[in-house]
């Protein structure tokens, strides 16, 4: 039997130390150990992007990483994007542009959009579509998702988001 490893990971600005089996996937660690169920498992095969989180500030698919690989690193999930009860601009943009229908892809879409905007603050429409190629949405046809990323990039979203009713955000 493989022995467990002790890892220390910073998740959404809180440091956690846990014993984990090496085969435990990062997404399982986030959801089942830490209770951060905002990060979803969709395809579980590296295709759909629903499980996207940031590792040291860049997007990764947390179903395709072992929790032990995150030892000593910093993870940000969808639950860590809002600040002081205020949605991040990209979250607010998804809300205002109605960039979702069923919402299952939304946490991953938002995390990938945030990573894309960090790397390229003013992407063209094609760059947005290319940047989201690792995230699947089966409802929207992507139109409003692209519009939301454009709105966030252009800074045209409302800054007063304190009373937002969006789910899954502290």
């Amino acid at each position, binding site marked *: 039997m*493989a022995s467990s490893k002790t890892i220390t990971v910073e998740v959404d600005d809180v440091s956690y130390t846990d014993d984990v089996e*090496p085969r435990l996937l990062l997404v399982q660690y986030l959801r089942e150990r830490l209770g951060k169920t905002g990060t979803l498992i969709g395809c579980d095969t590296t295709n759909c992007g629903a499980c996207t989180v940031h*590792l040291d500030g860049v997007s990764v698919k947390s179903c395709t990483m*072992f929790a032990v*690989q995150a030892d000593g690193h910093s993870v940000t999930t969808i639950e860590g994007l809002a600040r002081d009860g205020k949605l991040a601009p990209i979250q607010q943009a998804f809300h205002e542009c109605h960039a979702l229908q069923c919402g299952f892809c939304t946490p991953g879409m938002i995390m*990938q959009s945030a990573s894309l905007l960090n790397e390229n603050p003013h992407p063209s429409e094609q760059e947005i579509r290319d940047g989201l190629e*690792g995230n699947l949405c089966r409802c929207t046809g992507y139109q409003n998702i692209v519009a939301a990323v454009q709105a966030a990039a252009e800074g045209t979203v409302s800054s007063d988001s304190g009373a937002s009713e969006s789910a899954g955000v502290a």
Partner: protein
Amino acid sequence: MIPSAFDYAAPATVAEALSVLADAGDDVKLLAGGQSLIPVMKLRLADPAMVVDLGRIGELSGVRDDGDALLIGAMTTHHQVATDPLVAAHLPLLAKAAATVADPQVRHRGTFGGALVHADPAGDLPAAVLAADATFILAGPGGERRVEAADFFQGYFTTAVAEGEILTHIRVPKYTGWGAHYEKFTRVAQQWSIVAVAAMVRVEDGTIAEARIGLTNMGSTPLRAAAVEQALAGTPLTREAIAAASAHAAEGTDPASDLNGDASYRRHLAEVLTRRAVIAAAGL
């Protein structure tokens, strides 16, 4: 999906990794970016007793100037290769090929060396490093050895890396000033190449002085389109001349037939994509 249980080691140096490998027996897998290995472990197509994670070995990551070549650490991510200024200046072909791998999240984790050792015939980097005549630097129990790209890829998912060895760096000669393009054909986003063509050309006084062409997924290994390279050398820089030379692209290839297309379709694609790749590389 949950992989089978395994023992895990995360050595901090290549020497330590070699020593772990030497003691681990033969049921061991090296973990680089994990973007191919972890999916097959989750499907239990692979269930190694031990996994040695190379992610803590800092010396394996990054791109360095090495005189007439770039030295690329095996753990350098696709994203780093695609955005590195040295690669952009001297080996734009690699940057362009790396930028087409999978999707942004996978490029943030997946590694240059890991993809090359994985040696998927539909992978995008093997044809590019073959066209560039790269040298693979392997560390093993007996020290370092070097393998030329032409000898590195041996068959489906099979390379010259022996048991107990680790690919540490890839030394790729600079092609400063050459035009480069990677033309990839897929049906949907984030798909593997059905066929792709890596092209570099050196243009001199309105003539193609030299060309280097690598083919992706036209056989069990990446291939050089030698007949195209010969036909292009010394030809005038015109679309007609490039089209005529590209008609040789499928010579000596042995593409597979699968759900994405049969062998004759792939041979057709090789010609069309070679023409497009060379035209784009030459800036026509």
